[in-house]
């Protein structure tokens, strides 16, 4: 009996020593830190987090992963050290909440900051910034008057003139989902097929590579996200490509240009809910929203926060666009998550790799 008892004691001591190494020690004991899993890259986040750390005196620990955060959270379960998750796509926000990995925010300040369209109706996540997927075109070879809608890209007149990154990239999947939403699966499949046939080269690279290809004359148009253009215009080595390329906001007369948002949620397993809430409030607040606009060239979601000068110039010659503001496709936004799997299947069928 005595032996059993001392064994149990030994076991407990072992566990105690082990737990000193455990991820738990990251969070619970130190309320002055919050832990963040982020789909967004660190260099996009760093300035924001630095500002938060200096005003709140709470340190933010980060793991950035472009892939696999949901799977990691699921595996870690209730002991996950993460307090918050930041995503680059509304579909992942919805998925996180569907998988039961988030807790309700219940933050009055946040509700005041961010309009209803960009908050989870159930209250599990909140959007932070938006971007549009628009058409990049060669200023030299394309008259923007001949551009119109995403649907137009199927037209034979664009044969051999379109460049694209992989069709299966989340940005393109998201756009196709909006087409499924507006026109149904059959149309979306046909669209993917026709656009693929119009490609000047095999899908490759990222959004910036397409701008480069346009500026070099390899193709005339491409789909791309707004903020990349801002980033490229700021960067000496990429400015030349970007300056030869224009931005056209499609579907302004119909459904509006396709948008997607980045957002944040607090995990169910969070041990520092208070700190996490402070960070969410901060990210939706004026300072952070301002930075989203000025530093990242995204569209801030808090009303009244201006976009950057570069973004203001987007679509300057396009009718209906003032100061970079355009008609947004808000209806499709909430449906993007549930249509994602279907859209990937359609892209597979269309052979749009």
């Amino acid at each position, binding site marked *: 009996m005595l032996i059993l008892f001392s064994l149990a004691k030994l076991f407990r001591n072992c566990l105690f020593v082990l*737990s000193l*190494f455990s991820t738990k020690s990251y969070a619970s004991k130190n309320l002055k830190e919050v832990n963040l899993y982020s789909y967004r890259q*660190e260099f996009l986040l760093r300035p924001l987090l630095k500002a938060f750390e200096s005003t709140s005196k709470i340190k933010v620990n980060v*793991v950035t992963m472009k892939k696999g955060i949901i799977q990691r959270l699921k595996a870690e379960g209730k002991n996950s050290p993460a307090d918050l998750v930041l995503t680059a796509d509304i579909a992942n926000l919805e998925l996180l909440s569907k998988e039961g990995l988030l807790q309700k925010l219940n933050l009055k300040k946040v509700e005041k900051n961010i309009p209803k369209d960009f908050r989870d109706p159930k209250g599990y996540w909140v959007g932070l910034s938006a971007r549009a997927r628009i058409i990049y075109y060669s200023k030299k070879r394309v008259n923007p008057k001949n551009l119109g809608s995403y649907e137009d890209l199927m037209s034979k007149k664009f044969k051999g003139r379109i460049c694209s990154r992989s069709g299966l990239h989340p940005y393109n999947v998201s756009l196709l989902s909006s087409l499924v939403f507006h026109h149904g699966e059959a149309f979306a499949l046909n669209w993917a097929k026709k656009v693929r046939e119009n490609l000047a080269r095999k899908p490759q690279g990222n959004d910036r590579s397409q701008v480069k290809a346009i500026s070099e004359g390899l193709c005339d148009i491409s789909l791309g996200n707004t903020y990349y253009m801002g980033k490229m215009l700021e960067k000496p080595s990429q400015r030349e490509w970007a300056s030869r390329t224009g931005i056209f906001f499609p579907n302004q007369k119909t459904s509006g240009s396709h948008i997607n948002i980045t957002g944040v949620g607090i995990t169910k397993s969070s041990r520092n809910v208070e700190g996490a809430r402070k960070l969410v409030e901060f990210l939706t607040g004026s300072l952070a929203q301002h930075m989203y606009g000025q530093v990242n060239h995204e569209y801030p979601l808090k009303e009244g926060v201006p976009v950057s000068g570069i973004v203001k110039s987007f679509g300057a010659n396009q009718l209906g666009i003032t100061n970079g503001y355009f008609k947004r496709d808000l209806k499709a936004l909430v449906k993007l998550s549930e249509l994602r799997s279907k859209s990937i*299947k359609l892209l597979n069928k269309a*052979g749009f790799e």
Partner: protein
Amino acid sequence: MKKVLRLKRVWVLLVLSALFSLPFFSTLLLSVSPDEPVFKHLWETVLPGYIKNTFLLMIGVGIGSFFLGLVTATLVSFFKFPGRQLFQKFLILPLAIPGFVIGTVYLQFFEYSGPFQSLIRKLFGFQTASEYWFPEIASLGGVTVVLSFILFPYVFMTTRSAFMEQSQRFFEVSRSLGKGPIRSFTSVILPLSRPSLTLGLSLVLMEAASDFGTVHFFGVPTLTSGIYSVWLQMNNLGGAAQLASMLLSFMILFITLEKWSRSQKSYYSLKGNHRQMELKELKGLKGFAAFSLCLIPLFFGFLFPFSLLLFWSFSHIGQIEFSRFLNDLGHTIFLALSAGGLCLLFSLLFNYIQRSLGKNRLVEGMVSFATLGYSIPGPVLALGVLIPLAKFDNFIDSIALSLFGNGTGLIFSGSVAAILLAYLIRFFVLSYGSIQTGFLRITPKMDEAAIQLGAGVFDRVSKIHGPLLKRSLATSLILVFVDSMKELPATLMLRPFNYNTLATRLYELSSDERLMESAPWGVAIVLSGLLPLIILGHPFGGKRNNLKEEEKES
């Protein structure tokens, strides 16, 4: 008593193999219950294309690396020509650069807007792409060529060390029996080197099949890309696991075929009979040809991409935050060293036990499972480590909670231990393979003789095995160290908070089209990859001197 000991050893092997094949079995388990049946859809749409690309890639890269590796190894092993000494040292360098870096460098250099084609356009006055023909670099062909130049050193290394073991006498006997030099080479030397050649080739094939980064940049969808899109985008873990299981069964099929084809033979090299190969001197044009044949793979696999990285580094050196850089470097070296040590330790254990048990089907089966990790795509491996590890942690936590009312939290998952386990599983085969080829040099007869002379275990290990294995140990450490430095997908997914390695930082910067700013990190990876070569000595360097030293020691 002996039987009990034997049984114990089998148990040790069994437990270790089970641990090493953890990702394999968890993948298999997951594939049985997909969240939503997706296989039929895949089969009707993209899967045949994925399979075709995977096969063609493996065949292409296999042939390419085999050819490059064999030619260069043959030249430096049997001939004397200008630069031979340097080549035998430097031909392994392509292994030190992460594949996705070389891939991006080549893409940027040769694509339409890259400097090469721009130059062509300027020279010939072309205006658009339609006016001239240039092969599409982002293609299956392109990625096959690039991967061959990156991966051939595996074949070169294993073949070179096999050739170094071979005695001039075999060759002479064969020649005296009337066979010409070429016939002697193909019918005596090559067959004797088969285990090493196969090891090199299978490393190449596994690497090609599980590569994600490079094929992704080249826009060539393989099974690995399929796994990504099904798992991470369709959020269908089970469906992805089905694809992963498919990839793994190809691997198992291949390994089994190879094992079966040489199952009847035992390979031991006969060191006692050793006489150094005499090198045939190649003069004039022939010498130049040999020089070029070695220079081409070294140039494309290392010199060219590395000089570009170096060049970019100098122009961006001012932008580095040094504290960050040192931090990343520290993490990387710590991980690579620990992984190298752990792999070495377990490989020795494995090899000793396996040796003591003699030829045994069960043991061989266990070894195959334990060495599968190398063929598992990084992200699948990461998940295969993460899920069971988190389960284990949560289990311990719940026990502690119910017993003592105080949970432990997650102990291993989300810590450096998880990364190390992933490295250990992934790179075990590199270490196991090099040590095994080392053990082939120690024939059972040598042990018997030593025992008869009254040598104990300690004497045998320190006086016979140690010196004879020295080079294999170094090779094992170097290979694991270098590969750990480059590892990306598993590190990205398993790392703790605020934790970066050189490779993760490099990836983060380069995936944002900031390859040039990331160059210093790339250079650091290459240079630290060279560290063990400098410290441990080159596996092929100063062979004759080593031999003399060994003789003196014994």
